[in-house]
């Protein structure tokens, strides 16, 4: 008799017959298995109360009973009926999918993890199956044969798990022949969960903060003053220039709205320091608002109503301060809201003027309706007209690549301006592979409210396709910095790079611009905005730098 370590123990023909696949059940019969590292903690009741949202309650994702309201099925189905009527896109997306599979392998969470329910088609099917059962005749009659199923508590859990494993990045929609926007399916799915009081805290707490303080981080006006003044000190240390920070300045020409992530956390703070320096250099007549202190809008990750509630402050402050137009900072999802929703939900902004650069005279016709332009459009125009004195060699120690943030790229189509700006201020720029940039860009894995830490494994799986492309240019071209014009990217890609492409740092674009700009009255620059010595420039004993 052969032993296990002898070939005779195994029969080749039996091995050939072996089925490698685990026994499977259909996706409808496979209940969700909540794995630590893959789900996000629930929204705290106090945040729901602040916002006046239904069914604020105490629960944990791992509880068997999520304490849904008594008539929760009616609430969900009525909510669905209301939205089918209100949003024609939702009705269309429920009806049109032919399950061709073009989207199946395009989601970063599927690519990195392999969970079939992260195929966009199947993620949408989680909702579509309920739609068929309750809103279509065929589904009512044929049931499962027609891909329909009953709405049960397990379905709600499945929705929560998977609609919070979608970053609403819309990469799948680029490949859909019908243009089905799965992000909108996710948005509706989250809205329906919200009717039952089910949110994630990492989205709903920023929303509650934003609702009261105007920014996600609950920075009150005096805290904002303090935060910006610390940056002013650091700017002076790096450049010798003392900049002004105009706050709530009535009658200013421009209202500047950045993402609040840039106020408090590295590396975003260096981008914010860049804004302050550049506006000072240009002598811009602008102002921050301590209420419209946040361009980001986690309402986008919560509900359509919340988008409107949180975004209203921007036009309101523009009106109160009497500005002519609005300039927006390096935020990602803010631009989906400003570009695609703002005019409809909060407009028309007929009290504003079409943005016109006071330096070059360029009129930004593309912003005729919303009256807001992106800081990269503004910088690109300045550079094109030779209005910035640049020394890109100051960035020669940087070998940079550019991550197209999902929303500016796919929702706004701003692809060339950031590249033009980066190439103007850095001599060493390298693109990542074609199918990972521009419209096909891969998400950081932490957008749409997923950028918290308890779901780190999920984020790293989702960040794999992006990290993989970064590592490729790191190995091939020696890339050591990844530029991104999104505050969530600047927070989450640091971690993605640490894991998948260690050694690559993350930067905002304005930081690169400010480091390359020769400012009027600057001292010899030996430190960058991170207050790190600029390689190749040595510091003299008297603190003045000089070329080695």
């Amino acid at each position, binding site marked *: 008799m052969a032993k296990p*370590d*002898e*070939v*005779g123990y*195994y029969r*080749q023909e039996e*091995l*050939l017959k072996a089925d*490698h*696949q*685990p026994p*499977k059940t259909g996706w409808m019969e496979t209940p969700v298995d909540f*794995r630590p*590292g893959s789900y996000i*903690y629930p929204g*705290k*009741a106090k945040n729901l109360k602040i916002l006046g949202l239904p069914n604020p*309650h*105490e629960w*944990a*994702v*791992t509880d068997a009973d999520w304490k849904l309201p008594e008539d929760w099925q009616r609430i969900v189905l009525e909510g669905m009926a209301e939205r089918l009527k209100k949003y024609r896109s939702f009705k269309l997306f429920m009806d049109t999918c032919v399950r061709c599979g073009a989207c*199946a*392998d395009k989601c970063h969470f599927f*690519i*990195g993890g*392999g*969970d*079939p329910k992260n195929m966009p088609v199947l993620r949408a099917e989680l909702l579509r199956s309920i739609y068929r059962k309750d809103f279509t005749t065929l589904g009512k009659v044929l049931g499962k044969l027609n891909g329909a199923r009953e709405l049960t508590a397990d379905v709600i859990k499945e929705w929560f798990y998977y609609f919070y494993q979608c970053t609403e990045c819309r990469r799948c929609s680029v490949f859909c022949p019908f243009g089905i926007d799965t992000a909108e399916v996710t948005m509706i799915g989250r809205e329906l969960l919200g009717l039952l009081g089910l949110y994630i*805290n*990492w989205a709903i707490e920023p929303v509650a903060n934003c609702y009261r303080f105007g920014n996600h*981080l*609950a*920075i*009150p006006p*005096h*805290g904002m*003053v*303090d*935060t910006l003044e*610390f940056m002013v000190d650091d700017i002076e240390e790096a450049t010798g220039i003392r900049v002004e920070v105009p706050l709530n300045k009535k009658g200013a020409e421009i209202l500047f709205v950045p993402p609040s992530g840039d106020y*408090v*956390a*590295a590396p975003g*703070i260096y981008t914010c320091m860049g804004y302050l320096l550049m506006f000072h250099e240009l002598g811009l007549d602008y102002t921050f608002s301590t209420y419209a202190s946040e361009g980001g809008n986690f309402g986008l990750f919560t509900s359509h109503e919340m988008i409107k509630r949180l975004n209203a402050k921007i036009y309101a402050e523009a009106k109160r301060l009497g500005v002519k137009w609005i300039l927006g900072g390096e935020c990602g999802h803010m631009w989906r809201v400003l570009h695609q929703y703002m005019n409809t939900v909060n407009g028309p902004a007929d009290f504003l003027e079409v943005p016109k650069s006071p330096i070059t005279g360029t009129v930004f016709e593309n912003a005729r309706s919303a009256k807001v332009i992106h800081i990269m459009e503004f910088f690109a125009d300045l550079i094109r007209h030779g209005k910035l004195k640049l020394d890109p060699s100051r960035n020669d120690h940087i070998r940079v690549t550019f991550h197209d943030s999902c929303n500016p790229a796919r929702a706004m189509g701003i692809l060339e301006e950031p590249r033009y700006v980066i190439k103007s201020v850095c001599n060493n720029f390298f693109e990542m*592979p074609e*199918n990972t940039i521009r419209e096909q860009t891969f998400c950081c894995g932490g957008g749409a409210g997923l950028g918290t*830490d308890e779901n*780190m494994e999920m984020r*790293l*799986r989702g960040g*794999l*396709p992006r990290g*993989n492309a970064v590592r*490729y240019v790191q190995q091939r071209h020696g890339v050591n910095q990844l530029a991104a014009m999104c505050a969530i990217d600047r*927070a989450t890609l*640091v*971690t993605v790079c*640490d*894991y998948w492409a260690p050694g690559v740092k993350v930067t905002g674009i304005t930081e690169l611009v400010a480091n390359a700009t020769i400012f009027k009255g600057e001292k010899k620059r030996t430190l960058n905005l991170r207050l790190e010595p600029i390689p190749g420039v040595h510091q003299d004993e008297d603190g003045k730098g000089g070329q080695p």
Partner: protein
Amino acid sequence: MALSDQLREKTVAIADRWLAEALAAYPADSAAAFRRGQDRFANPVGHALREGTRAALEALLDGRPPSEVCAALDEVIKIRAVQEFRPSEALRFVFALKAALRAELKSPPADEAVSADLAELDRRIDQAALEAFDIYMRYRSQIGELRINEVKRSVARLVEQIDRWPDRANGQRSPLVPLECGQSQRGDEA
């Protein structure tokens, strides 16, 4: 024919069999997608599995030490560390190489020397598998560190500001409201 020669002739078939075993950890549709896509950027998991298992098999058949066999699997293990596997599920595929080798041997080795060679191969695969757990644990620990670092990074500037405040305002407290940065499992906990 020596065992190594027999196996070397079958390298492609063994690699294919082993890849199938490694892919078996995923649901059928996902495994098919990972096997199908050839683009390393569109399908990084499939690419890493294909390249990693091939390189590890070559290292094994070349008689290189188990640490080199395992090093070829580093990327695969790194990916498995963030996927939804239990450790045993994540690394089962390393042991599956034994079955893949045997399935491609034409017949049981008649002579003792070949049989001993096979036992030696098994021993080296076992050693590589043990080292795979070391790599796996290194990445799992790193995930925990990354999580901690991110939380620290999110408050570092605030802590710095609070530290610097007394220099600026004669010992007054910063007007910054400390943020609630702790997350909790239950909805009601502060």
